[in-house]
Protein backbone atom coordinates (compact mmCIF):
# COMPACT_ATOMS: atom_id res chain seq x y z
CA UNK A 1 0.00 0.00 0.00
CA UNK A 2 2.77 2.41 1.01
CA UNK A 3 4.72 1.28 -2.04
CA UNK A 4 1.74 2.04 -4.22
CA UNK A 5 1.31 5.46 -2.66
CA UNK A 6 4.99 6.23 -3.17
CA UNK A 7 4.71 5.16 -6.78
CA UNK A 8 1.75 7.44 -7.34
CA UNK A 9 3.54 10.37 -5.66
CA UNK A 10 6.64 9.69 -7.76
CA UNK A 11 4.63 9.47 -10.96
CA UNK A 12 2.80 12.69 -10.21
CA UNK A 13 6.12 14.26 -9.29
CA UNK A 14 7.65 13.23 -12.61
CA UNK A 15 4.61 14.46 -14.47
CA UNK A 16 4.71 17.85 -12.72
CA UNK A 17 8.45 18.05 -13.31
CA UNK A 18 7.90 17.36 -16.98
CA UNK A 19 5.27 20.05 -17.18
CA UNK A 20 7.49 22.53 -15.32
CA UNK A 21 10.45 21.65 -17.50
CA UNK A 22 8.60 22.20 -20.70
CA UNK A 23 7.06 25.39 -19.37
CA UNK A 24 10.54 26.64 -18.58
CA UNK A 25 12.18 25.65 -21.84
CA UNK A 26 9.23 25.65 -24.17
CA UNK A 27 8.43 22.87 -26.57
CA UNK A 28 10.15 21.88 -29.77
CA UNK A 29 8.98 24.27 -32.47
CA UNK A 30 8.65 21.41 -34.95
CA UNK A 31 5.99 19.68 -32.88
CA UNK A 32 3.96 22.73 -32.01
CA UNK A 33 3.37 23.88 -35.54
CA UNK A 34 -0.26 24.86 -35.78
CA UNK A 35 -2.08 22.31 -37.88
CA UNK A 36 -5.37 24.19 -37.66
CA UNK A 37 -6.10 27.39 -39.49
CA UNK A 38 -6.40 29.21 -36.19
CA UNK A 39 -5.45 28.52 -32.63
CA UNK A 40 -6.65 29.76 -29.29
CA UNK A 41 -4.35 32.54 -28.11
CA UNK A 42 -4.32 31.42 -24.49
CA UNK A 43 -3.78 27.67 -24.85
CA UNK A 44 -2.40 27.32 -28.37
CA UNK A 45 -4.98 24.59 -29.05
CA UNK A 46 -6.66 24.37 -32.43
CA UNK A 47 -9.92 26.25 -32.64
CA UNK A 48 -12.95 24.28 -33.74
CA UNK A 49 -16.52 23.85 -32.41
CA UNK A 50 -15.35 21.36 -29.79
CA UNK A 51 -12.43 23.40 -28.51
CA UNK A 52 -14.24 24.54 -25.36
CA UNK A 53 -15.07 20.97 -24.29
CA UNK A 54 -11.50 19.84 -24.89
CA UNK A 55 -10.11 22.80 -22.98
CA UNK A 56 -12.40 22.06 -20.05
CA UNK A 57 -11.66 18.34 -19.96
CA UNK A 58 -7.95 18.40 -20.76
CA UNK A 59 -6.36 21.50 -19.29
CA UNK A 60 -7.63 21.36 -15.74
CA UNK A 61 -4.67 19.35 -14.50
CA UNK A 62 -1.92 19.87 -17.03
CA UNK A 63 -0.60 22.38 -19.50
CA UNK A 64 -2.12 22.35 -22.99
CA UNK A 65 1.49 22.11 -24.15
CA UNK A 66 1.42 18.44 -23.17
CA UNK A 67 -1.11 17.99 -25.94
CA UNK A 68 0.60 20.35 -28.38
CA UNK A 69 3.89 18.52 -28.27
CA UNK A 70 2.44 15.13 -29.17
CA UNK A 71 1.07 13.52 -32.32
CA UNK A 72 -0.83 10.29 -31.64
CA UNK A 73 -3.35 8.06 -33.35
CA UNK A 74 -6.87 7.97 -31.95
CA UNK A 75 -6.11 4.70 -30.11
CA UNK A 76 -2.95 6.16 -28.65
CA UNK A 77 -4.81 9.24 -27.42
CA UNK A 78 -7.41 6.93 -25.87
CA UNK A 79 -4.67 5.03 -24.07
CA UNK A 80 -3.35 8.35 -22.67
CA UNK A 81 -6.84 9.10 -21.34
CA UNK A 82 -7.05 5.64 -19.74
CA UNK A 83 -3.58 6.08 -18.26
CA UNK A 84 -4.54 9.42 -16.72
CA UNK A 85 -7.73 7.82 -15.41
CA UNK A 86 -5.71 4.98 -13.89
CA UNK A 87 -2.88 7.03 -12.48
CA UNK A 88 -3.88 10.67 -12.24
CA UNK A 89 -7.50 10.68 -11.08
CA UNK A 90 -8.85 11.83 -14.42
CA UNK A 91 -12.63 11.59 -14.26
CA UNK A 92 -14.86 9.61 -16.59
CA UNK A 93 -15.31 11.80 -19.66
CA UNK A 94 -18.69 10.24 -20.37
CA UNK A 95 -20.21 11.29 -23.67
CA UNK A 96 -17.54 13.91 -24.21
CA UNK A 97 -14.87 11.20 -24.60
CA UNK A 98 -15.79 10.71 -28.25
CA UNK A 99 -15.78 14.48 -28.80
CA UNK A 100 -12.35 14.84 -27.22
CA UNK A 101 -10.95 11.90 -29.22
CA UNK A 102 -12.42 13.25 -32.45
CA UNK A 103 -10.75 16.59 -31.75
CA UNK A 104 -7.38 15.07 -30.89
CA UNK A 105 -7.41 12.64 -33.81
CA UNK A 106 -8.28 15.49 -36.16
CA UNK A 107 -5.76 18.07 -35.02
CA UNK A 108 -2.98 16.09 -33.37
CA UNK A 109 -2.60 12.96 -35.50
CA UNK A 110 0.86 11.58 -36.36
CA UNK A 111 2.53 14.11 -38.59
CA UNK A 112 3.55 12.49 -41.86
CA UNK A 113 5.82 15.39 -42.74
CA UNK A 114 7.76 15.26 -39.49
CA UNK A 115 11.43 15.49 -40.24
CA UNK A 116 13.73 12.77 -39.06
CA UNK A 117 17.44 12.82 -39.84
CA UNK A 118 17.32 8.99 -39.72
CA UNK A 119 14.12 6.99 -39.69
CA UNK A 120 13.68 3.80 -37.73
CA UNK A 121 14.64 0.76 -39.82
CA UNK A 122 11.45 -0.52 -41.41
CA UNK A 123 10.25 -3.87 -42.74
CA UNK A 124 13.11 -5.88 -41.30
CA UNK A 125 12.70 -9.50 -42.43
CA UNK A 126 14.11 -11.51 -39.55
CA UNK A 127 15.94 -14.76 -40.27
CA UNK A 128 18.18 -17.09 -38.24
CA UNK A 129 21.86 -16.50 -38.92
CA UNK A 130 23.52 -19.88 -39.30
CA UNK A 131 27.01 -20.09 -37.94
Amino acid at each position, binding site marked *: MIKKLLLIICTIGLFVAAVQREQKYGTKPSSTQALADSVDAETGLALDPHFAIVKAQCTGCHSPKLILQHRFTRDEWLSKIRWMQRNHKLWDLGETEKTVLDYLAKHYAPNQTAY*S*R*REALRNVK*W*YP*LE*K
Partner: protein
Amino acid sequence: MKETLHNRRGFLKKSALTTLAGIVGTEIVFAENMPKNHVPLAFDEGLKGKHPDMIVLSDKPWNVETPPHLLDDAVTPIERMFIRNNGLVPEEKIDPKAWSLTIKGESVKAPKTYTLSELKTKFKTYTYQLVLECGGNGRSGFVPQTSGNQWDQGAVSCAEWTGVRLKDILNDVGLKDDAVYIGYYGKDLHPSRDPSKVVISRGVPIKKALEDETLVAWAVNGQELPLMHGFPLRLVIGGWPASVSGKWLHTIAIRNKEHDGAKMDGQSYRVPRQPISPGEKLAETPENFRIIESMPVKSLITSPKSGAMLDLGKTLSLRGHAWAGDLGIKEVQVSIDYGATWQKANVQPPKNRLAWQHWSAQIQLPKKGYYEVWARATDANGVTQPMVIPAWNPGGYLNNACHRIAVKAV
Protein backbone atom coordinates in the same frame (compact mmCIF):
# COMPACT_ATOMS: atom_id res chain seq x y z
CA MET B 1 -6.87 -4.11 -67.87
CA LYS B 2 -5.23 -3.11 -64.61
CA GLU B 3 -7.93 -4.69 -62.45
CA THR B 4 -7.22 -8.03 -64.02
CA LEU B 5 -3.44 -7.80 -63.82
CA HIS B 6 -2.86 -6.52 -60.33
CA ASN B 7 -4.03 -7.50 -56.91
CA ARG B 8 -5.43 -5.05 -54.37
CA ARG B 9 -1.96 -3.94 -53.33
CA GLY B 10 -0.90 -3.14 -56.87
CA PHE B 11 1.31 -6.16 -57.36
CA LEU B 12 1.02 -8.44 -60.34
CA LYS B 13 -1.35 -11.35 -59.83
CA LYS B 14 -0.13 -14.90 -60.21
CA SER B 15 -2.48 -15.43 -63.15
CA ALA B 16 -1.06 -12.38 -64.92
CA LEU B 17 2.43 -13.68 -64.29
CA THR B 18 1.57 -17.01 -65.87
CA THR B 19 0.20 -15.23 -68.94
CA LEU B 20 3.27 -13.05 -69.17
CA ALA B 21 5.53 -16.01 -68.68
CA GLY B 22 3.80 -17.58 -71.66
CA ILE B 23 4.45 -14.50 -73.76
CA VAL B 24 8.11 -14.07 -72.92
CA GLY B 25 8.80 -17.75 -72.45
CA THR B 26 10.38 -17.37 -69.06
CA GLU B 27 9.36 -17.12 -65.44
CA ILE B 28 8.83 -13.56 -64.19
CA VAL B 29 11.13 -13.53 -61.23
CA PHE B 30 11.05 -9.78 -60.70
CA ALA B 31 7.32 -9.39 -60.16
CA GLU B 32 7.66 -8.47 -56.49
CA ASN B 33 10.23 -5.81 -57.26
CA MET B 34 8.27 -4.04 -59.96
CA PRO B 35 6.79 -0.63 -59.31
CA LYS B 36 3.23 -0.98 -58.05
CA ASN B 37 0.54 -1.03 -60.74
CA HIS B 38 3.19 -1.32 -63.40
CA VAL B 39 2.29 -3.21 -66.55
CA PRO B 40 5.32 -4.89 -68.03
CA LEU B 41 4.88 -5.06 -71.79
CA ALA B 42 7.62 -7.59 -72.29
CA PHE B 43 11.02 -8.23 -70.90
CA ASP B 44 13.86 -6.65 -72.77
CA GLU B 45 17.53 -6.40 -71.93
CA GLY B 46 16.97 -4.56 -68.68
CA LEU B 47 16.92 -7.49 -66.33
CA LYS B 48 18.48 -10.12 -68.52
CA GLY B 49 21.24 -11.79 -66.56
CA LYS B 50 20.40 -9.85 -63.39
CA HIS B 51 19.91 -11.35 -59.95
CA PRO B 52 16.19 -11.80 -59.11
CA ASP B 53 16.48 -9.66 -55.97
CA MET B 54 17.58 -6.55 -57.83
CA ILE B 55 15.24 -3.60 -57.16
CA VAL B 56 13.64 -1.96 -60.19
CA LEU B 57 13.16 1.78 -59.71
CA SER B 58 12.24 2.44 -63.32
CA ASP B 59 12.06 0.37 -66.51
CA LYS B 60 11.96 3.23 -69.02
CA PRO B 61 14.75 4.15 -68.79
CA TRP B 62 16.15 1.23 -66.82
CA ASN B 63 17.21 2.12 -63.29
CA VAL B 64 17.86 -0.87 -61.10
CA GLU B 65 19.62 -1.03 -57.75
CA THR B 66 21.31 -3.70 -55.71
CA PRO B 67 20.35 -4.56 -52.12
CA PRO B 68 23.46 -4.15 -49.92
CA HIS B 69 23.78 -7.85 -49.05
CA LEU B 70 24.16 -8.65 -52.77
CA LEU B 71 27.26 -6.43 -52.91
CA ASP B 72 29.27 -8.80 -50.72
CA ASP B 73 31.65 -9.91 -53.49
CA ALA B 74 35.09 -8.33 -53.59
CA VAL B 75 34.50 -7.68 -57.29
CA THR B 76 30.89 -6.95 -58.19
CA PRO B 77 29.50 -9.57 -60.61
CA ILE B 78 27.50 -8.19 -63.56
CA GLU B 79 24.34 -9.86 -62.28
CA ARG B 80 24.60 -7.66 -59.17
CA MET B 81 25.68 -4.45 -60.84
CA PHE B 82 23.26 -1.53 -60.57
CA ILE B 83 21.93 0.04 -63.77
CA ARG B 84 21.48 3.76 -64.17
CA ASN B 85 20.31 4.79 -67.62
CA ASN B 86 19.24 8.29 -68.57
CA GLY B 87 17.81 7.27 -71.93
CA LEU B 88 16.91 4.18 -73.87
CA VAL B 89 19.38 1.47 -74.77
CA PRO B 90 20.42 1.76 -78.44
CA GLU B 91 17.85 -0.09 -80.52
CA GLU B 92 19.90 -0.55 -83.66
CA LYS B 93 21.87 -3.77 -83.96
CA ILE B 94 25.38 -3.04 -82.77
CA ASP B 95 28.25 -4.47 -84.80
CA PRO B 96 31.45 -4.17 -82.76
CA LYS B 97 33.51 -4.64 -85.94
CA ALA B 98 31.97 -1.46 -87.36
CA TRP B 99 32.23 0.53 -84.11
CA SER B 100 34.63 3.45 -83.88
CA LEU B 101 35.72 6.15 -81.45
CA THR B 102 36.27 9.70 -82.70
CA ILE B 103 38.33 12.23 -80.74
CA LYS B 104 37.57 15.80 -81.75
CA GLY B 105 36.84 19.25 -80.29
CA GLU B 106 38.40 22.72 -79.96
CA SER B 107 41.52 21.43 -78.21
CA VAL B 108 42.69 18.61 -80.51
CA LYS B 109 45.33 19.39 -83.11
CA ALA B 110 43.27 17.36 -85.59
CA PRO B 111 40.28 15.01 -85.13
CA LYS B 112 41.09 11.31 -85.27
CA THR B 113 38.97 8.15 -85.48
CA TYR B 114 39.90 4.66 -84.27
CA THR B 115 38.07 1.43 -84.94
CA LEU B 116 37.46 -0.76 -81.90
CA SER B 117 40.02 -3.30 -83.11
CA GLU B 118 42.59 -0.52 -83.62
CA LEU B 119 42.08 0.59 -80.03
CA LYS B 120 42.65 -2.97 -78.85
CA THR B 121 45.86 -3.46 -80.83
CA LYS B 122 47.43 -0.01 -80.96
CA PHE B 123 47.45 0.74 -77.23
CA LYS B 124 48.49 -1.16 -74.13
CA THR B 125 45.57 -2.82 -72.33
CA TYR B 126 44.99 -2.21 -68.61
CA THR B 127 42.61 -3.73 -66.05
CA TYR B 128 41.45 -1.88 -62.92
CA GLN B 129 38.82 -2.40 -60.26
CA LEU B 130 36.89 0.86 -60.19
CA VAL B 131 34.08 2.13 -57.99
CA LEU B 132 31.15 3.48 -59.97
CA GLU B 133 28.60 5.19 -57.77
CA CYS B 134 25.60 7.18 -58.92
CA GLY B 135 25.77 10.79 -57.71
CA GLY B 136 22.21 10.31 -56.45
CA ASN B 137 22.90 7.14 -54.46
CA GLY B 138 21.06 7.52 -51.16
CA ARG B 139 18.65 10.13 -52.54
CA SER B 140 15.65 8.50 -50.82
CA GLY B 141 17.03 9.62 -47.44
CA PHE B 142 16.53 13.32 -48.12
CA VAL B 143 13.59 15.19 -46.59
CA PRO B 144 11.94 17.07 -48.21
CA GLN B 145 11.99 14.59 -51.06
CA THR B 146 13.86 15.62 -54.19
CA SER B 147 13.01 14.47 -57.69
CA GLY B 148 15.00 11.73 -59.39
CA ASN B 149 15.38 8.03 -58.86
CA GLN B 150 14.81 7.30 -55.17
CA TRP B 151 17.97 5.22 -54.74
CA ASP B 152 18.45 3.63 -51.35
CA GLN B 153 22.05 2.42 -50.82
CA GLY B 154 22.70 0.18 -53.80
CA ALA B 155 23.60 2.44 -56.74
CA VAL B 156 27.25 1.46 -56.45
CA SER B 157 29.51 -1.24 -57.86
CA CYS B 158 33.17 -2.12 -58.04
CA ALA B 159 33.87 -4.37 -61.01
CA GLU B 160 37.05 -5.09 -62.94
CA TRP B 161 37.18 -3.05 -66.13
CA THR B 162 39.49 -3.68 -69.05
CA GLY B 163 40.42 -1.26 -71.80
CA VAL B 164 42.99 1.32 -72.80
CA ARG B 165 44.02 4.48 -71.01
CA LEU B 166 42.32 7.58 -72.36
CA LYS B 167 45.62 9.42 -71.86
CA ASP B 168 47.37 7.07 -74.30
CA ILE B 169 44.72 7.76 -76.93
CA LEU B 170 44.90 11.52 -76.34
CA ASN B 171 48.70 11.45 -76.57
CA ASP B 172 48.35 9.76 -79.94
CA VAL B 173 45.78 12.32 -81.12
CA GLY B 174 47.76 15.34 -79.92
CA LEU B 175 46.18 17.99 -77.69
CA LYS B 176 46.50 21.75 -77.76
CA ASP B 177 47.65 23.54 -74.61
CA ASP B 178 44.23 25.00 -73.96
CA ALA B 179 42.45 21.70 -73.20
CA VAL B 180 40.20 22.17 -70.16
CA TYR B 181 37.54 19.44 -70.18
CA ILE B 182 36.37 16.35 -72.01
CA GLY B 183 32.82 15.54 -73.05
CA TYR B 184 31.56 12.13 -74.17
CA TYR B 185 28.84 11.24 -76.67
CA GLY B 186 27.04 7.88 -76.66
CA LYS B 187 24.48 6.09 -78.77
CA ASP B 188 21.70 5.96 -76.19
CA LEU B 189 18.31 7.27 -77.31
CA HIS B 190 16.40 10.16 -75.83
CA PRO B 191 13.24 8.76 -74.12
CA SER B 192 11.25 10.68 -76.77
CA ARG B 193 13.15 8.70 -79.44
CA ASP B 194 13.97 12.03 -81.11
CA PRO B 195 17.38 11.33 -82.71
CA SER B 196 18.30 15.04 -82.64
CA LYS B 197 18.12 15.09 -78.83
CA VAL B 198 21.13 14.10 -76.71
CA VAL B 199 20.17 12.27 -73.51
CA ILE B 200 23.34 12.80 -71.57
CA SER B 201 26.78 14.11 -72.54
CA ARG B 202 28.99 14.75 -69.54
CA GLY B 203 32.70 14.71 -68.80
CA VAL B 204 35.54 15.61 -66.47
CA PRO B 205 38.33 18.19 -66.29
CA ILE B 206 41.33 17.25 -68.43
CA LYS B 207 43.42 16.51 -65.31
CA LYS B 208 41.03 13.75 -64.22
CA ALA B 209 40.71 12.50 -67.82
CA LEU B 210 44.50 12.00 -68.00
CA GLU B 211 44.73 9.86 -64.85
CA ASP B 212 46.11 6.33 -65.32
CA GLU B 213 42.82 4.71 -64.25
CA THR B 214 40.62 6.60 -66.72
CA LEU B 215 39.76 3.87 -69.21
CA VAL B 216 38.06 3.49 -72.54
CA ALA B 217 36.78 -0.01 -71.80
CA TRP B 218 35.33 -2.90 -73.79
CA ALA B 219 35.31 -5.60 -71.11
CA VAL B 220 34.14 -6.06 -67.53
CA ASN B 221 35.04 -8.96 -65.22
CA GLY B 222 36.85 -10.60 -68.14
CA GLN B 223 33.94 -10.58 -70.56
CA GLU B 224 32.49 -8.39 -73.29
CA LEU B 225 30.45 -5.45 -71.94
CA PRO B 226 26.75 -6.29 -71.57
CA LEU B 227 24.47 -4.10 -73.71
CA MET B 228 22.93 -2.59 -70.54
CA HIS B 229 26.37 -1.46 -69.40
CA GLY B 230 27.51 0.20 -72.62
CA PHE B 231 28.38 -2.47 -75.20
CA PRO B 232 30.63 -2.31 -77.13
CA LEU B 233 32.62 0.62 -75.66
CA ARG B 234 32.38 2.97 -72.70
CA LEU B 235 34.27 5.39 -70.53
CA VAL B 236 35.06 4.26 -66.99
CA ILE B 237 36.15 6.98 -64.57
CA GLY B 238 36.25 5.84 -60.94
CA GLY B 239 35.58 7.96 -57.87
CA TRP B 240 33.37 10.59 -59.52
CA PRO B 241 29.61 10.44 -60.12
CA ALA B 242 29.16 7.46 -62.43
CA SER B 243 27.36 9.73 -64.92
CA VAL B 244 30.82 10.78 -66.16
CA SER B 245 31.42 7.19 -67.32
CA GLY B 246 29.57 7.40 -70.63
CA LYS B 247 28.16 4.25 -72.23
CA TRP B 248 27.82 3.23 -75.90
CA LEU B 249 30.73 5.60 -76.46
CA HIS B 250 31.41 6.83 -80.01
CA THR B 251 32.89 10.34 -79.57
CA ILE B 252 34.96 12.26 -77.06
CA ALA B 253 35.24 16.03 -77.46
CA ILE B 254 38.29 17.75 -76.01
CA ARG B 255 36.99 21.14 -74.97
CA ASN B 256 38.73 24.47 -74.36
CA LYS B 257 36.06 25.26 -71.76
CA GLU B 258 33.89 23.40 -69.29
CA HIS B 259 31.86 20.89 -71.30
CA ASP B 260 28.31 22.10 -71.98
CA GLY B 261 26.60 18.87 -73.02
CA ALA B 262 23.28 17.49 -71.82
CA LYS B 263 23.05 17.24 -68.00
CA MET B 264 26.07 19.44 -67.38
CA ASP B 265 23.90 22.46 -66.59
CA GLY B 266 21.24 23.64 -64.13
CA GLN B 267 21.35 21.50 -61.01
CA SER B 268 22.18 18.24 -62.84
CA TYR B 269 24.99 16.50 -60.94
CA ARG B 270 25.59 19.77 -59.11
CA VAL B 271 25.22 20.94 -55.52
CA PRO B 272 24.83 24.43 -54.05
CA ARG B 273 28.11 26.32 -53.61
CA GLN B 274 26.76 27.76 -50.35
CA PRO B 275 24.99 25.48 -47.86
CA ILE B 276 21.21 25.95 -47.88
CA SER B 277 18.41 24.88 -45.55
CA PRO B 278 16.31 21.81 -46.40
CA GLY B 279 13.79 22.64 -49.11
CA GLU B 280 15.27 26.05 -49.89
CA LYS B 281 14.79 27.25 -53.46
CA LEU B 282 17.81 28.35 -55.44
CA ALA B 283 18.00 29.70 -58.99
CA GLU B 284 19.74 27.15 -61.22
CA THR B 285 22.74 29.23 -62.18
CA PRO B 286 26.44 28.34 -62.35
CA GLU B 287 27.00 31.00 -59.67
CA ASN B 288 24.77 29.01 -57.32
CA PHE B 289 25.67 25.44 -58.28
CA ARG B 290 29.02 23.68 -58.58
CA ILE B 291 29.69 20.45 -60.48
CA ILE B 292 30.10 17.39 -58.24
CA GLU B 293 33.64 16.06 -58.60
CA SER B 294 35.16 13.46 -56.24
CA MET B 295 32.46 11.49 -54.39
CA PRO B 296 32.39 11.59 -50.56
CA VAL B 297 33.56 8.84 -48.19
CA LYS B 298 31.09 5.97 -47.86
CA SER B 299 30.78 2.38 -46.69
CA LEU B 300 28.39 -0.54 -46.75
CA ILE B 301 27.72 -3.52 -44.50
CA THR B 302 27.36 -6.36 -47.00
CA SER B 303 27.28 -9.29 -44.55
CA PRO B 304 25.18 -10.31 -42.78
CA LYS B 305 21.99 -9.23 -44.50
CA SER B 306 19.85 -6.99 -42.28
CA GLY B 307 17.51 -9.00 -40.04
CA ALA B 308 20.00 -11.59 -38.80
CA MET B 309 19.07 -13.36 -35.57
CA LEU B 310 21.84 -15.15 -33.70
CA ASP B 311 22.15 -16.99 -30.42
CA LEU B 312 23.39 -14.90 -27.52
CA GLY B 313 27.10 -15.52 -26.97
CA LYS B 314 27.84 -16.20 -30.64
CA THR B 315 30.29 -13.86 -32.33
CA LEU B 316 28.82 -11.82 -35.16
CA SER B 317 31.15 -11.53 -38.14
CA LEU B 318 30.67 -8.37 -40.17
CA ARG B 319 31.95 -7.55 -43.65
CA GLY B 320 31.68 -4.75 -46.13
CA HIS B 321 33.44 -2.24 -48.34
CA ALA B 322 34.50 1.40 -47.97
CA TRP B 323 35.47 3.95 -50.61
CA ALA B 324 36.11 7.69 -50.79
CA GLY B 325 36.05 9.12 -54.30
CA ASP B 326 39.60 10.00 -55.33
CA LEU B 327 40.94 9.25 -51.84
CA GLY B 328 41.82 6.12 -49.89
CA ILE B 329 40.24 4.95 -46.64
CA LYS B 330 42.02 5.67 -43.37
CA GLU B 331 39.69 3.81 -41.02
CA VAL B 332 36.38 1.95 -40.70
CA GLN B 333 34.54 1.64 -37.39
CA VAL B 334 31.40 -0.18 -36.28
CA SER B 335 28.97 0.59 -33.45
CA ILE B 336 26.17 -1.41 -31.83
CA ASP B 337 25.04 1.42 -29.52
CA TYR B 338 24.02 4.11 -32.01
CA GLY B 339 27.44 5.70 -32.09
CA ALA B 340 28.02 5.96 -28.34
CA THR B 341 31.07 3.70 -28.71
CA TRP B 342 32.93 2.56 -31.82
CA GLN B 343 35.08 -0.44 -32.54
CA LYS B 344 37.80 -0.40 -35.18
CA ALA B 345 37.39 -2.75 -38.13
CA ASN B 346 40.18 -4.37 -40.16
CA VAL B 347 40.59 -2.61 -43.49
CA GLN B 348 42.42 -4.09 -46.47
CA PRO B 349 44.38 -1.95 -48.91
CA PRO B 350 42.66 -1.35 -52.28
CA LYS B 351 43.46 -3.61 -55.24
CA ASN B 352 44.42 -0.43 -57.07
CA ARG B 353 43.73 3.29 -56.71
CA LEU B 354 39.96 4.06 -56.97
CA ALA B 355 38.92 0.50 -55.99
CA TRP B 356 36.85 -0.01 -52.88
CA GLN B 357 38.47 -1.46 -49.75
CA HIS B 358 37.13 -4.46 -47.88
CA TRP B 359 36.63 -4.26 -44.13
CA SER B 360 35.72 -6.85 -41.53
CA ALA B 361 34.96 -6.90 -37.82
CA GLN B 362 33.85 -9.31 -35.11
CA ILE B 363 31.38 -8.14 -32.51
CA GLN B 364 29.71 -9.56 -29.42
CA LEU B 365 26.15 -8.59 -28.53
CA PRO B 366 26.09 -8.14 -24.73
CA LYS B 367 22.53 -9.35 -24.05
CA LYS B 368 19.40 -10.55 -25.80
CA GLY B 369 17.50 -8.00 -27.85
CA TYR B 370 17.40 -5.69 -30.83
CA TYR B 371 20.54 -4.00 -32.10
CA GLU B 372 21.53 -1.89 -35.05
CA VAL B 373 25.02 -2.29 -36.43
CA TRP B 374 26.27 1.00 -37.85
CA ALA B 375 29.43 1.31 -39.95
CA ARG B 376 31.33 4.49 -40.67
CA ALA B 377 34.40 5.11 -42.75
CA THR B 378 36.99 7.89 -42.58
CA ASP B 379 38.89 9.04 -45.66
CA ALA B 380 42.61 9.78 -45.98
CA ASN B 381 41.97 13.44 -45.11
CA GLY B 382 40.27 12.50 -41.83
CA VAL B 383 36.73 13.21 -43.06
CA THR B 384 34.14 10.77 -41.66
CA GLN B 385 30.67 9.74 -42.82
CA PRO B 386 27.85 11.48 -40.95
CA MET B 387 25.38 9.31 -39.03
CA VAL B 388 22.54 11.67 -39.92
CA ILE B 389 21.50 12.66 -43.43
CA PRO B 390 23.98 15.28 -44.65
CA ALA B 391 23.35 18.64 -46.32
CA TRP B 392 20.07 18.75 -48.20
CA ASN B 393 20.43 19.84 -51.81
CA PRO B 394 17.82 20.28 -54.56
CA GLY B 395 19.15 17.42 -56.68
CA GLY B 396 19.29 14.97 -53.78
CA TYR B 397 22.96 14.13 -54.34
CA LEU B 398 25.78 12.97 -52.05
CA ASN B 399 23.89 11.33 -49.21
CA ASN B 400 26.79 9.45 -47.66
CA ALA B 401 25.16 8.84 -44.26
CA CYS B 402 26.23 5.64 -42.49
CA HIS B 403 24.67 2.34 -43.56
CA ARG B 404 23.16 0.22 -40.77
CA ILE B 405 21.55 -3.17 -40.36
CA ALA B 406 19.18 -4.63 -37.78
CA VAL B 407 20.28 -7.72 -35.83
CA LYS B 408 18.87 -9.62 -32.86
CA ALA B 409 20.51 -11.68 -30.15
CA VAL B 410 18.05 -14.43 -29.18
